[in-house]
């Protein structure tokens, strides 16, 4: 089945230690998104790629970066995680970002110790 896969499901990292979360898709969708979701809150968009074009949200901290080496994979890098970065990170894909809705991965729950 075509899907969006996020690894790992759970990630524990130390305060200040760089961490990378990964997302892959078999849907061949043009657009890939990274959302941050804190407990009982709506997902907050960090950035997205439309093909190779990177689009950063204005309020996304510089501590967060992303890479999309090819259509299938997208990575979220947190350079120096703080306690406030503990959250669920959701990857989503869309064919055109508009009409068909988004397909979400299962998420990676990040804990910072």
């Amino acid at each position: 089945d075509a899907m969006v896969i996020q690894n790992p499901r759970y990630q524990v990292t130390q305060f200040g230690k760089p961490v990378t979360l990964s997302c892959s898709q078999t849907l061949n969708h043009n657009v890939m998104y990274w959302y941050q979701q804190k407990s009982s809150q709506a997902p907050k968009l960090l950035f997205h790629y439309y093909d190779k074009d990177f689009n950063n949200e204005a309020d996304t901290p510089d501590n967060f970066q992303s890479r999309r080496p090819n259509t299938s994979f997208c990575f979220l890098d947190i350079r120096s995680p703080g306690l406030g970065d503990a959250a669920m990170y959701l990857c989503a894909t869309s064919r055109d970002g508009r009409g068909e809705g988004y397909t979400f991965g299962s998420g990676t729950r990040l804990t910072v110790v």
Partner: protein
Amino acid sequence: AQTVTQSQPEMSVQEAETVTLSCTYDTSENNYYLFWYKQPPSRQMILVIRQEAYKQQNATENRFSVNFQKAAKSFSLKISDSQLGDTAMYFCAYPAGGSNYKLTFGKGTLLTVNP
């Protein structure tokens, strides 16, 4: 600014009954799409139902239907014959944007279905 508002943080319903979740939005676009997503506890976000604004007919997916009122910018979700598995956070969402569309979520409504 394009926003999505869900005014009910929490709701509960008895199994087999009907419940309606509210959503209003603000947009200057004429042709757009609206979505309801479901996020069960500790589980994946999934698409429940989708509405195209240029279609007057309300979307329906099995037990899930919407009441779309374009002029009022209202997009409510009706769940009929509620089941225990419907317990989840429900998000209303709208792909706001200009050249790049980005899904904007409401704050969500936590629905609990009681046996």
